[in-house]
């Protein structure tokens, strides 16, 4: 069985983990249009994503955002997806995305969920092996904090300390798999109010970027420190996403519940009728596919080296000087047949792997050439290292 590449999502409750996954898995044909790859979901993932889309469409038809789908995750959910490149030799590359109830991120809260305690090590295992760490960020929590008290509440509400800890584990895992890609995506969600490029009138794109940078600076520093000296540097992608494109914040209210800060936000659909206009999710999907292609290329390189070793060993044995009796034994024992078969099989395997490798490299190059959403930035590590 081919091992799957893994993608982890990390964020507290109600931050938008499922929304982000749905945004990047919905309409993958559109999101990856013009790229050399296609993405197929298994039945359960496909049904789940389609249902979420359908319910969202029903909410759009009703014009009531508060009745929208994606009403909070209560169990661990795994999304199984397969990436296929173009070309006859393209392999199907499976990858899994893991979603979980956000409250599990908080040690104190997690202790209240008996099965979360037992499932948590599996989640951390998944994180450690993930090539991509997706960090959804509630843009409204960041941007609507004005007073010092509200600003102080931002980190707890976004679970920044817990996200940092998971980020540390992820980075340690990436260091252990130094030949695999490592991408962290900081994804502010529901950004419609702060941009003017998707039907809105906001001019706070710079402010949003600055606030994300400020709040997640510690995470980026942790990752940089844990992955120092890595041959394949960690790629940090900033992707402010409009998960709906037709939703706007109408009321933001800060309050204290049981001595803890909380933030209530109420949204409504804009436009009549409201139309979904997701932004920047496609670029995240492209980043994901690019990472998987690079990861698979590394797998193919390792496979090719293995085949080459076996081929060389066969050729060496064949060419080895043998005395009369050893030559007789070599042929009568059937070793010569085995060695010839080994050389033939490994040669064919090397040719196959080389063809796949060429396909993957071509697909990666073509994917890299596809223009990214102008909102998306790849951040240089120099600023926080």
């Amino acid at each position, binding site marked *: 069985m081919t091992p799957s590449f893994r993608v982890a999502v990390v964020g507290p409750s109600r931050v938008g983990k499922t929304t982000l996954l749905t945004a990047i898995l919905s309409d993958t044909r559109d999101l990856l249009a013009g790229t050399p790859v296609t993405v197929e979901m298994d039945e359960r993932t496909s049904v*789940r994503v389609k249902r979420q889309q359908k319910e969202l469409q029903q909410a759009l038809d009703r014009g009531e955002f508060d009745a929208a789908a994606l009403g909070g995750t*209560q169990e661990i959910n795994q999304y199984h997806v397969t990436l296929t490149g173009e070309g006859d030799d393209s392999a199907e590359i499976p990858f899994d995305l893991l979603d979980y109830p956000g409250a599990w991120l*908080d040690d104190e809260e997690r202790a209240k969920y008996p099965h979360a305690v037992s499932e948590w090590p599996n989640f951390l295992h998944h994180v450690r092996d993930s090539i991509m760490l997706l960090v959804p960020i509630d843009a409204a929590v960041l941007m609507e904090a004005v007073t010092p008290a509200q600003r102080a509440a931002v980190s707890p509400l976004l679970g920044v300390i817990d996200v940092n800890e998971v980020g540390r584990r992820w980075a340690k895992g990436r260091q252990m798999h130094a030949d695999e890609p490592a991408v962290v995506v900081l994804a502010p969600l529901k950004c419609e109010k702060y941009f003017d490029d998707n039907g809105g009138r906001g001019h706070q794109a710079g402010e949003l970027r600055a606030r994300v940078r400020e709040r997640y600076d510690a995470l980026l520093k942790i990752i940089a420190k844990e992955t120092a000296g890595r041959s394949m540097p960690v790629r940090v992608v900033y992707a402010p996403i409009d998960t709906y494109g037709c939703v706007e914040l109408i009321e933001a209210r800060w309050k204290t519940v049981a001595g803890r800060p909380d933030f209530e936000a109420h949204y409504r659909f804009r436009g009549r009728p409201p139309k979904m206009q997701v932004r920047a999710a496609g670029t995240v999907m492209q980043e994901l596919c690019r990472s998987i292609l690079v990861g698979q290329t590394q797998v193919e390189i390792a496979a090719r080296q293995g085949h080459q070793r076996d081929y060389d060993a066969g050729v060496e044995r064949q060419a080895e000087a043998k005395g009369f009796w050893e030559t007789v034994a070599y042929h009568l024992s059937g070793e010569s047949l085995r060695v010839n078969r080994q050389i033939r099989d490994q040669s064919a395997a090397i040719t196959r792997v080389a063809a796949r490798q060429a396909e993957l490299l071509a697909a990666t190059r073509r994917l890299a050439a596809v223009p990214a959403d102008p909102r998306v930035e790849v951040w240089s590590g120099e600023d926080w290292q």
Partner: protein
Amino acid sequence: MRTGSDRETQVTAAHLMTRGTPRRLDYRFLGAGPVERWWRPVQDWVVLEQPEVIVCGRSLLISGIPSARKDAIGTAIRYTLVVEDVERALAHSLAAAGLHSAGRARLGALLDAGFPAEWVDAALGDTAPSDAEVARRLAPALAAFGRDEPGAAQHRVRHRSWVGALDDGEAVAAFLDRVTRLADGESGWAFTTSAIASVKGAGDAADALGAPVAVLLADGGPPEVIDLGKAQAGPRPGLRTMTTTTPLRRRWVVPLAGVVLLVAILVVVLIATVFPL
């Protein structure tokens, strides 16, 4: 936890999962919750964030029960109700309610009456409720169901495992019949699913569970009940199965060994004949 209703004979334990208004109060059971997550084997085949009914023996779970409460970002909150060691009338009645939006709405309203927003927020926060308190609040909602004994089965499906559509009246009746029989002590599962939308997917679930299964598909269900048993019954214990996929090489091993043995015997006989001792 034990319910404290006057209909105590109908159910041994009932649990309720929901979330609070503040962000950090995520979905969790009020009070201790079930000792065992008995629905775990089907968890990968259902979506507990959606309306589902899962029955295993005398245990029943209904998810996606709507509450009128909303969370901090205005999203509708829902309940998941788990009842264990449930008596047949209540199992039938609750499952029937769980299969239809009107029934779930009625159940949700009853639960909302017993579990007001402020109480839930406190219970999921730092003031954990006692089991007795949760049971006391659950009792009226459960007491509103299961008053009538289910009638004699008129829609019994003889297949060991089958799949039908949630919008097919015959399949729903057969499903409820299976629920009643499970509550009476039969083994197996009955569940609805929003996670799969094909007969093949239901067959895979039945294979994975390895027990009698009745499945109702929320989407993509067949026009009539379809037998899954043949596909997943598997060999009977103690029977050796003949495989038709024996590799060609292995098929030749026995005859080849026989020929070699025969030749060896002939050679020995020949040598013994030519060079007698």
